[in-house]
């Protein structure tokens, strides 16, 4: 981010993946408060984005990463959303057996 500076003289280490995910999640979940929910999409839009992330519009994606309430709500919906295959259904043994 322009204007951001680390502590002078401190030897910089690459953030571990686990730390990046933990801190990044907290950053997006807390650092963009929007108490009046200005410009937020309806909950149904966030729910749809959580159910089908691959079909999310760029506008919704940009908003989620700039609004902590929407980011948290998206996360809640994501937790509840069943993961559906984008291309094909996974073939199970029972399905194979019924086909043959």
């Amino acid at each position, binding site marked *: 981010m322009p204007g951001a500076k680390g502590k002078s003289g401190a030897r910089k280490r690459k953030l571990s993946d686990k730390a990046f995910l933990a801190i990044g*999640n907290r950053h997006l979940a807390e650092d963009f408060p929007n108490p009046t929910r*200005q*410009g937020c*999409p309806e909950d149904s839009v966030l729910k749809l984005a959580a159910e089908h992330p691959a079909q999310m519009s760029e506008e919704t994606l940009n908003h989620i990463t700039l609004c902590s309430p929407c980011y948290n709500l998206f996360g809640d919906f994501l937790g509840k959303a069943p993961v559906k295959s984008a291309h094909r259904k996974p073939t199970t043994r029972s399905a194979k057996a019924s086909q043959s």
Partner: protein
Amino acid sequence: MPSMRETKPIRPVLLNEVDHLGRPIAPEVLSVAREIGPRAVAYADNLIGDPAVTVTCLEEAAASVSAAIAEKQRMGAPGVRDIGAYLFRTFIHLIDKAKHREMSFEDAVQEYGETQFNPTEQGRAETAVLINEIMAVCDQVSREIILLRLRDQSWEEIGRHFGISPYAAETRYRKALDRARKTLRIQK
């Protein structure tokens, strides 16, 4: 966006063409800053409650973004896709810093206690910078994959969402992080 919530009327924000450090703000960035100004200042007012500080931070953010864009052009680095989002993140980062400067002694002691179990300020700043860069330079699918990963989705789940293998999802994630890190190194 398909349907929006009702928004409150907000007042326009007057911005100078230079920040308080005398650094110029590029016309295209100034135009975006004036556009997002009312919303950004309304955001920040709730956090620090001083309109003068928030406007100063917005001007400082706009000048920093102008310098960053000029530097990217000079170095041949990928351009900023969404100046508004880039500017807004930089502004929020500065507001966060201003908020910490104004913390009372008691708050500072309490936060020190919390940092014994939480990430350091440097770690938070580095992550914020990296996420901002990812959102500015990476393609939509990569950003979506990173968003899902941040929300603790497994590679298998992410792969199923996008119709790709878990390995491909992880590779895309790593490439996006590496690309953002590389761009940041070029800027430094």
